[in-house]
């Protein structure tokens, strides 16, 4: 094994990590906002809101992300209206196109997670909050969303990992994140196996950290489900 080459490759590929993380974090953040809106639309009970949201989720979950990226990056330029519009400086940049595609994609998957979490809030809790005279806004802020967040966390953790893996596709539209840099290095050195193993190790490490963070958040949010510290001490003394 050529350790110096592996080390050199690692240093080069690490320069792509900020872009990988930036794409993942921004798309997940923006996607989450969109997902909550979509989930509320699906649960609103109004056909006019629920039906378009369901269609959106169905379409984005049934087609490959790469097709969505190409449709936005290459496809939209076909229309003169788009190229003449003020949006064109954004839509011709691969970075923004990748970010838009990733955001729209994760919103569709996350919508289902959020919807499931919102449905899992026990009706009794909502009735109790109403009985206390909470307004709809307060009810959501203090009861529904905090409870739903807890239910959504395990599923959302999977989505984090999926999105970190999905950012690799941005390399196909020329973005130089970890996979893009790896592909470039391969074309320069032809040492594909070593370079790809280093790239894989970087993704594995990021995902390992993310898994740990989600586990920690799950633990931190379930304080009410754990026995009080006093009980633990007593149990330990026995």
């Amino acid at each position, binding site marked *: 094994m050529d350790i110096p080459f592996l080390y050199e490759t690692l240093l080069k590929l690490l320069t792509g990590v900020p872009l990988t993380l930036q794409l993942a974090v921004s798309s997940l953040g923006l996607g989450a906002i969109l997902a909550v809106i979509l989930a509320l639309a699906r649960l609103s009970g109004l056909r006019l809101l629920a039906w378009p949201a369901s269609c959106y989720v169905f*379409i984005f979950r049934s087609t490959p992300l790469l097709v969505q990226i*190409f449709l936005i990056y290459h496809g939209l330029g076909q229309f003169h209206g788009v190229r003449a519009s003020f949006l064109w400086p954004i839509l011709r940049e691969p970075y923004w196109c990748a970010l838009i595609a990733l955001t729209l994609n994760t919103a569709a998957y996350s919508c289902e997670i959020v919807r499931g979490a919102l449905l899992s809030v026990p009706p009794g809790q909502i009735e109790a909050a109403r009985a206390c005279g909470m307004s709809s806004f307060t009810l959501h802020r203090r009861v529904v969303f905090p409870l739903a967040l807890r239910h959504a966390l395990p599923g959302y953790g999977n989505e984090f990992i999926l999105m970190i*893996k999905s950012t690799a596709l941005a*390399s196909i539209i020329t973005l130089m994140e970890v996979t893009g840099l790896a592909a470039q290095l391969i074309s320069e050195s032809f040492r594909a196996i070593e370079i790809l193993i280093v790239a894989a190790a970087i993704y594995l490490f990021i995902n390992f950290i993310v898994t740990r963070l989600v586990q920690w958040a799950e633990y931190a949010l379930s304080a009410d489900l754990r026995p009080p510290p006093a009980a633990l001490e007593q149990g330990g003394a026995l």
Partner: protein
Amino acid sequence: MTASDFVLGFGEAGWGAALLQAAMMTLAVALTGYAFGLVVGSLGAWAKIKGGTLLRLIADAYTTVLRGIPDILVIYLFYFGSSAVLTPLAGLFGISGFVSLPGFMAGALAIGLVSGAYQAEVMRGAYRAVSPGEIEAAIAAGMSRMTLFRRIIAPLVLRYALPGLGNVWQLVLKESALVSVTGLVEILRQAQIGAGSTGQPFTFFFAAAVLYLAISSFSTWLLRRTEGRLTLGSRRA
């Protein structure tokens, strides 16, 4: 615009036939990869359930790594990685230049290896759902291990695993689009070719999306039907 001028039509200048043929290629590479994944996944599940410490460790490492890295890296590994082995080998026979596994093979192997990791987890979960009483009853009835597996375990595991395996199939179908980077003319690659030569990228990528949507919807329908058949014997609340 007449029907024969339409770029996605089936006339002389139309790309309809080419796209449908590419859809067949997508199905072929996805099905081959999925079948390979079933074999790898079953072995992985078996290693996780019945294997010794070493086998379990290997199987756990396999499912953790393959589910934690981007699929495109695995495809690159088979496509470029095989060339790292095959190009010098071809040089020995006087063939110079880039030699690699054919796109179809590299793609199917990569899809198989990735989906196998997911399928192993699905099947392991399904095996856990088989109630021990059924297995004990079979043993008490004097079934041999082979008969026990064939008549009791396999049908039950299949029934419990079917929804999960269906999800993996949908994943594989979408993953097959990534094989286009090897130059294999499946739906996405054909759409890229069409977009390049007609200057109408939106039309072609939209058509590609519709084809994927159609295949995926058809699969959902088929899976739901099969699920209904396989669960005829179970009670429904």
